């Protein structure tokens, strides 16, 4: 009997540390975000709250959500617009550009060494530490020392079209935001797609070649249809992470602008929803933790809904092996 209990207990002994860490880093903060979203927590009553989570100085309120949904905070609409532009543009880079890129790298380029070199090069934006990525971009766009404006002039772009500062002049800053994140996203798409292309059985492609199909026809009629699932995977995965990603924006605009990321991001119109939430908590003078949590809570809900949807669409197995090809 004793042995039986211990056999049942054993897995949980092995799992206990993992479960504890997950509760600490994921579950507790999610629950806390839900709670905080309904409070007026700010720097005024923060210390009381830390001592006692149910202190009378912190009030339960729906005001945060009124501010969001009834446009009492005028900036919410702008943040939403910027987020929409951001997500849709970067997503199309991820899904479509990365697809063409992968076909070019993994199918059109037959030389193994060249193909490998290109793949590694395209991985760089993704594996480079974020702050270094921010540093090199800050140099690249620098109007005086950087290379971007010189390259563009060389490519024939008239000087009048070039901005004084890529960081601060709105349409240009938004283009920059999309491109910077687009490289990282294209990296991600490329990893999945090239792995998938490489796993297409060669007989299929050879058969088409024997029948006299050109490489373009093969790409269009064989490779693309087979990449349906990996594509769907990339799109859904990226939607979720783009909705909440603001790290690169914070690092590039914050460091380039001398540390005060909130003002700069707002002026440059690159303040996406998640960054807005973050800045309300940590950069605003009153530290509106409650309001910021409400903003985050919306993303948490969107995230949970999307994840459940993905499980429904993909099933568990496909979600684990994104680059598997089903012929």
């Amino acid at each position, binding site marked *: 009997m004793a042995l039986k209990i211990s056999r049942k207990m054993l*897995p949980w002994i092995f799992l206990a540390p993992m479960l504890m860490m997950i509760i600490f*880093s994921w579950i507790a903060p999610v629950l806390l975000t839900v709670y905080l979203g309904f409070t007026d927590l700010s720097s005024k009553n923060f210390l009381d709250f830390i001592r006692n989570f149910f202190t009378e100085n912190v009030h339960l309120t729906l005001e945060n959500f009124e501010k969001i949904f009834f446009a009492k905070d005028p900036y919410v609409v702008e943040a939403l617009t910027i987020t929409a532009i951001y997500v849709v543009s970067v997503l199309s880079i991820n899904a479509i550009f990365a697809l063409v890129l992968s076909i070019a790298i993994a199918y*059109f380029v037959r030389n193994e060494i060249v193909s490998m070199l290109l793949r590694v090069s395209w991985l760089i934006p993704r*594996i480079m530490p974020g*702050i270094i990525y921010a540093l090199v971009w*800050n140099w*690249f766009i620098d109007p005086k020392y950087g290379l971007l404006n010189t390259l563009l002039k060389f490519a024939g772009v008239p000087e009048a079209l070039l901005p004084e500062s890529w960081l601060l002049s709105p349409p240009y800053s938004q283009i920059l935001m999309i491109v910077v994140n687009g490289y990282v996203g294209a990296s991600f798409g490329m990893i999945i797609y090239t792995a998938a292309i490489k796993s297409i059985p060669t007989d299929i492609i050879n058969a088409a070649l024997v029948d006299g199909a050109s490489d373009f026809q093969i790409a269009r009629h064989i490779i693309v249809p087979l990449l349906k699932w990996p594509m769907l995977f990339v799109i859904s995965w990226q939607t979720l992470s783009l909705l*909440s990603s603001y790290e690169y924006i914070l690092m590039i605009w914050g460091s380039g602008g001398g540390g005060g990321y909130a003002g700069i991001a707002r002026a440059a119109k690159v303040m996406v929803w998640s960054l807005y939430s973050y800045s309300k908590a940590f950069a605003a003078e009153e530290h509106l933790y409650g309001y910021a949590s409400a903003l*985050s809570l919306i993303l948490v809900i969107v995230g949970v809904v999307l994840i459940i949807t993905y499980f429904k669409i993909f099933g568990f197995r496909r979600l684990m092996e994104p680059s598997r090809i089903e012929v």
Partner: protein
Amino acid sequence: MRKKLKMPSIGGKTIILNVVKYLLAIIIAVIPLIPVWSMLLWLAVQSFSGRVILGIIPSEVTFKNWRFLWSPIKMGLKEYPNIWPVTLNTLFLALGVTGLVVFVSTLGGYALSRMEFKGRMELMQFIIALHAFPSIILLIALFVILNNLGLYGKGYMTLVGIILIKAGLEIPMATWIIKGFFDAIPWDLEWAALVDGCTRWKAWRTVILPLVLPGIGAISIFSFLSGWSEFLLVFTYVEDEAYYTLPVLIYHMIGEFKFIDWGMLAALGLFFTIPTIIFFSTSQKLLLRIYVGGIKR
């Protein structure tokens, strides 16, 4: 293989198609890489030269840009923290995350791979779901938790708190990766050890563990690099300059130095990237396997 099967086609059309094909490949796959390559080139060239033309053509070789290694960094009246304690902080964070992640996820991954228990499937789904869930929107709540535990503004204890959080955020993915390595070990091997009279614990330690060492290596490198380059948690939770890590120091220096001293910024950037370069050049295959298998933006 493919080439041999190809029909010996003559005629203008094929040639044109081929030209179009390679032109397309160059426009799509090579031209957008020019910024990336020039950025890397700049980082390397600028860090060892004084004035550079267009950022990539050096004019003189100098080690002046690396002066932060032996003398304090000053900007007007402001003196930045010395580089070595900051490097030590970064190392402390990275190693802490690595140790915790390896210990916890090896245990968890083994149980998920090898043991029968109620709710195993659900737990695996939950881990995959966490893996997809964007953790950075939890920063505010984590800040409250850190404060509540009394770890905010407490020097090294704050860094310990950050280690706990960071490790916790990495664990779902690391567990998943190491589970894959356990899955690849044949059952029979473990059976044989058990039949020979090993206890499960002993079988785990003497038979299984050595076989998953590559997997442990992979998650060690992976979590070391992710701890080493962690920015947001330290940026948000550490106020005292003495406990900055390198990414946060670099962040604060870019804005100040970008008008006068790109050379030092490039040198500092290169200094910080050394571990990444080392790991990627020595264990590229291992890391690619992770980047292909378990992906997180």
